[in-house]
Structures are given as structure tokens and as C-alpha cells.
């Protein structure tokens, strides 16, 4: 039994870390710009397809391809903000308007991916697929471990950027008090653009990591989005550390509950926890 608990702990932490990297961008956009980007995971799936193409057509390992995907997705983030999202700030209720808009955007993107790649599930097979490191009798899948390290690196990178760089501090200042930040000469437009760029990088990294450990297809973003909401709401909207902790909590919750209750009951437990948490702490664990 202890072995199963340990095994589930490892799965939970590894998966949670990966969801955290996906969640950090989502929570930043929501917290800083008030834009609820439902299409976040759809972009993550797009990143997965990019990595897939680079793997099968050129032979680039998906983790190496992140060197290209991350800056590309930063550029996509800027383009999406300038081309599509900027006008949303004219709306009275930005969150509601953005939610409706990004649901539409997610639908369009999903259908474009369906048209381009078909609904067939894809699997990225690398030389380390299906291999594990064994600690006693407990398996640590190499793919999940590598993705976890990359994801945690991403979360840490975003955290350090926000706390140690001038631009990062400007992002935080804008998020905490937009009016005061403007008085100090912080360019809100530029800050929002950077936030969007960073969010897309997180989507890209999270998407590639998730795709490396599981099969993916255009509509899988719906499943990922449900996990994302859990991660962000538990962690607290706008908090990078919250996203990381929320991810690990969701991962552990899924993995550990799976031991004691039938797996088909897991969604009930996950969402009941969410309801209880919202009742006790409506702003999440880490939002101040």
C-alpha cells in the first residue's frame, strides 16, 4: 500500500508541476489584465502540434523545440493582444467580454486545427518514452520527470522575472494598482503586451509538456481547461506561486484520491474540494 501511495505522490507532483506551468500564464492574464482567456489551452494544443511537426518532419526533440516554440509563442502573444484583445479593454466588464470572445477564439482555433491535422490522436514518441527510473519499487517516468523539471523551470523563470526585473516589477505594480503605476510612468499598454507574451510562453511550454506524456488532439484543450480552472482558482487568481501550489494540490488530489475511491468518482471529489475551498477562501489560497 505504501508503495502505491508513494507512486501516486510522485505522479501527483509530476503532473501538478506540468499543470502549474500551463496555469501560470492563465493566472497572470486574468490577474493583471482581467482578461479571462478561455483559449489559453487551445494555444497550448497549437504548441503541441508545432512540437509534433518539428519532431516528425525535422527530427527535433520536443524539449529542444521549446527553444523555438517559446519565443514564437511570445510573438504570438503580442500579436494576439495587438490584433484581437486590445479592443476588449473598451468593454464595461472586461472579464465577461473576454470570456465570451475567447470562447469564440478557442472554437475557431480548434476547428482550424481539426482542418489542418484532423481529429486523430497524436503521440510524440522519443527515445525516453516508456522508460522509468526505479526508486525501490516506485517508478518515476523519465518523460514526466523531464517535463516536470522544464515546467518548474518555467514557473520559476516567470517568478524571477516578476520579482527581479524592472519590467516584471512594473507588471506587478500594474496588477496591484493600475492608476498609481500609471502615475509612476509605467506604460500600461507595454506591460499588458508583455503579460500576454509571457502567458503564451506558458501555454506553449505547458502544451508541449502535456503532449509529451499523453496523446493529444484538437479538442483536448477542453479537458486541460477544466484542470486549469481548478489550479488557478485553488491557487488564487494572479499568483505565480499560487499556480505552482495549486497545480501540485490538484495533481496530488487526483493521484491520492484515486487510491481510495473508484477513479470514476474523481471529478466529484475534485470539484467538491473546489466548492468547499471557494466557500472557505473565495480568493484562493495565495491571492492577497
Amino acid at each position: 500500500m505504501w508503495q502505491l501511495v508513494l507512486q501516486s505522490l510522485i505522479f501527483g507532483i509530476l503532473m501538478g508541476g506540468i499543470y502549474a506551468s500551463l496555469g501560470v500564464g492563465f493566472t497572470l492574464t486574468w490577474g493583471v489584465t482581467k482578461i479571462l482567456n478561455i483559449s489559453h489551452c487551445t494555444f497550448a494544443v497549437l504548441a503541441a502540434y508545432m512540437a509534433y511537426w518539428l519532431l516528425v518532419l525535422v527530427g527535433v526533440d520536443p524539449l529542444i523545440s521549446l527553444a523555438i516554440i517559446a519565443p514564437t509563442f511570445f510573438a504570438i502573444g503580442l500579436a494576439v493582444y495587438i490584433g484581437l484583445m486590445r479592443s476588449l479593454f473598451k468593454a464595461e466588464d472586461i472579464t465577461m467580454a473576454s470570456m465570451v470572445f475567447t470562447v469564440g477564439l478557442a472554437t475557431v482555433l480548434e476547428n482550424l486545427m481539426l482542418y489542418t491535422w484532423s481529429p486523430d490522436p497524436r503521440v510524440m514518441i522519443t527515445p525516453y518514452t516508456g522508460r522509468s527510473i526505479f526508486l525501490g519499487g516506485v517508478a518515476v517516468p523519465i518523460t514526466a520527470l523531464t517535463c516536470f523539471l522544464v515546467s518548474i523551470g518555467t514557473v520559476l523563470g516567470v517568478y524571477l522575472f516578476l520579482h527581479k526585473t524592472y519590467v516584471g516589477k512594473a507588471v506587478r505594480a500594474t496588477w496591484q494598482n493600475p492608476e498609481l503605476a500609471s502615475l509612476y510612468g509605467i506604460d500600461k499598454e507595454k506591460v499588458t503586451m508583455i503579460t500576454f507574451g509571457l502567458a503564451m510562453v506558458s501555454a506553449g511550454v505547458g502544451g508541449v509538456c502535456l503532449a509529451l506524456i499523453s496523446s493529444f488532439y484538437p479538442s483536448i484543450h477542453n479537458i486541460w481547461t477544466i484542470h486549469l480552472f481548478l489550479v488557478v482558482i485553488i491557487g488564487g487568481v494572479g499568483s505565480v506561486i499560487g499556480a505552482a501550489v495549486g497545480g501540485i494540490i490538484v495533481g496530488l488530489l487526483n493521484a491520492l484520491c484515486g487510491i481510495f475511491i473508484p477513479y470514476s468518482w474523481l471529478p466529484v471529489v475534485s470539484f467538491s474540494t473546489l466548492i468547499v475551498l471557494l466557500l472557505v477562501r473565495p480568493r484562493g489560497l495565495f491571492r492577497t
Partner: protein
Amino acid sequence: MSKIAATKLKAIIIAVIVVAAVTGGSLWYYYTVVLPARKPIKIGGSLPLTGIYSETAKWIERGYRYWADEINKKGGLLGRPVELIIYDDESDVDKARMYLEKAITVDHVDLILGGYPGTACVAQMAVAEKYHMVYISMGGHLWSFEQGYQYCFGGPPLMGQWWAIGFLEFLESLPPDERPKKAAILVMDNVIGWACWESVMGKHEVGRRGSGEWVDIGIGLDDLGIEVVLEEAYSLPTTYETILSLVAKAKASGADVLFTLSFFDDGVMTIRACKELDYEPKAIFQGVGTLIPAWVEELGKDGDYVFSGTMLHWKLPYVKDERPDLIEYCRKTWGIDPPLYFLFGYCWMQVLQQAVEGVGRIDHDAMKDWLRTHEIHTIAGTFTFDEKGLPPPYSYCTQVINGSVELIWPPEVRTAEPVYPRPHWEEYGGASATAAGLTVDVESVPPGPGHLCYNIMANHLGAPSFIKGPMMLIMGLTAAVLLVTLAKVL
């Protein structure tokens, strides 16, 4: 008017009447007799040619098309050419139902095609009944044939409730001390999964799931003294983390036989997870995945020694001895032995053909009666249909051995000695399919929209590779430009 003028007018009128009568008669004859005789017989329906079931469905389509080509070369069905209209339902049950209805109401097809998988068949069976059209398909489970339908036949079916008969009989043949003692069952939470579960347990809930009326349908785990220590259901589509967690539970439960009642994609993930977690049951019994050529291509050696069931196989005498042309065709066209679903597609069309030819016209009421009162000769053998539209229950046990699906049970059709208990993972060759290098040649892989070819290509390209010529140079430059832009923005 003069007499001559009146006569001329009469002559003209008579001539016009004669011409009109001859033209009308000719047209009538052409449209009612000649044209129908030349008009193609349209046979339509849908298959999941893309999506999660596409790996299987594309072989059914090939079976359908082979039959159509064959019959057209022989002069057609009832002397008329055959034309297939096959829509892609994208593995979506609603679309499967919609496209079958479209084929009937918009395309006005004369005959309809069976769909795939069982979930789609169930939906399409209701449509077939509504329009009173004979529907030959796999059916998928016993409940779909317990609805009192008159026009639906499993010819033969891919019957979930019969799926494990052969495997359980094989286990029964082992000395009791060699049999597995504990079983873990991972079942996809849909009707097909639960139908297979009934087969494993040897009992059936009559009419519908949840009816509470159980009947014995043959040998089950209880009869063999095998205790079920874990039973978990999961929804499709699923994720690898779900499968990994479930396999971890199966391993921790100490089960020495694993039943993964899955389709192809989740079945592949389960085997991968078993290896990743070093789970070593004595036997693994899988749903329908192992019977698809992609099983071996995706898993390589890791896909070996997995048991399954089937109702049809190219090594059965009905195919091997009686229809060598089918084997030759598949080997010549795709470089492989006839896949199961290719044979199923062909077989269902054989049944439909016999119904039409038996009646001598396209009359669905007469065809359904004919099918229930005559012996049907197919590549799955000779059988008769009961009032439910089913042949008598049967199933063969299969096992993947050295990348080939072999018949294991019953002994009279055995094509290879069963490998039981299965060897440990490290004895398989010590590496995953990809790392070990697939033996499948890219050229032999059938073209299609599936992901398989890409996976194999990826393997041949030998990922990871840091430098792949000009393409990598272009990508490197792109990345550099993007990084400079990023630095400037920050």
C-alpha cells in the same frame, strides 16, 4: 378549308401523335426499364475515417471497397454496378447517425452500410429500423440486439459479450495451479467496455444496463476461481495520467491477470504504462486494439503476448483455404496479411449481397425475412441468424506473438503455441518500441490521415537530432530573430 388542306392537317396531326407516342413510349421504357437496370445501386453510410477510431475504420472501408470492386468486375449486383457513398463521421456518434440518415434521405441510397464502432452502430441501428432498411454490422454488444429490431443483423458481430469466451476457455484448460489467481479489470466507461466486462464475468444484464435481470452467458472469472481484486472504469477520451494511475493501482493490487477492456488508443497507453511501471502480470487481455496492424507498429515488441478475442481471422480455413485471393490482395497492396477489420468489412457486404441476390430484388422486408430463414456462407463461416439477428455465440482467442496475431483457442484452429505466462519486460528486448527501432518499413504503411506514418517517420529520422541541414538553419535563424525582438521588447 379545302379538302386537300384538311387532309394535310389530319396527316400532320396523326404524324405528331405517332411521333409523340413513340417518343413517350421510348422515354417510358428507357426510364422504367433500361435506366434502372443500368443505374448504379447506391450503398451508403458512414465510418470514422478520422478521429480516435480511424485506425480501425479505414480497414473496414477498404474491405467495403474491395467487395465493391470485385462485384463490379463480375457484372454488378443484380446486373447493376455498385456505388459506395461513405461519409467520414469523425468518430462522433451523433455524426454517424446523421450521415446515415443523410445517405437515406438525401442520397436516396438503395442499401446501407454498417458503421463502426459499436457505439455508432447502436445509434445507426435505430435509424435503419426507422427507415426499414437492412443493416449488417458488428453491432458491438448484446443490448443493441435486444431492442426487438427486425432489420439489424450481426453478420458476424463483434460481440462484446462474447469477446473473452475463447480466452477464458483457454485459462480453464490450464492446470488450476497455473491459472492466475487475482484479476484487475480496467474498463472504458461505455457500452462496449461494459459489454466486454460481461463477457469476462460470464453474466449478462438483459435488455439494458441497469435492468437488474442477470442471466448466465457462459464461463466467467468466478467459475475459474479467479478473484477480481480491482475494477476501475474510465471515460474516453482519456489521458495518460489516468491510465498510469489505474495501472499503478492494478500493480499494487497484486493482480496477476490484467483485463484492459479498451479500444486502440487507450489500449496502447495501458501497455506503455505497464512497461513504464514495470507491472508484470502473467497475462494481459485487451479489447479490440491488438487486432489492428497499428498495434504492432505503435508498440513494437512491447505489444507482444497480449491476448484478445475475435470472431474472424485470416488464418481460419474459411479465408486461408477458401479465399486466398483476399490474402494475396492485402499482401500485394499493403504488404501485410489481411487485417481483421478488412475481413469484417468484406464479410458484412457478403451477407448483404446474399440477401439481395436471395430475394432477387432490393426489397428490404423480403431481405430481412430471407436472412432469418437461410444459411449464410461467408468468410467467417456458415451460419444462420436467430430472431435477434445474431449467429450462435462464439469467439476465438488470439495472442500477439512476434508481431503477428495468432489464433490460440479453440485448439482446432490454433496457429501458434500460446505464450503463458508472458515473459518479463526486460526479456522483450529491453527497450521501448521506438528506442529499439520499429521493424515496419515506411513504404509498407498504408497512406492515410492517421498519425502512425508520422510516428514511424519520426523514428526513422532518429529523434532527437540537433542538426538536420538547412531546415535547422532556418529555424535557428528564426529563433535568433525572435530572441533579439524579445530582448528589445523587454
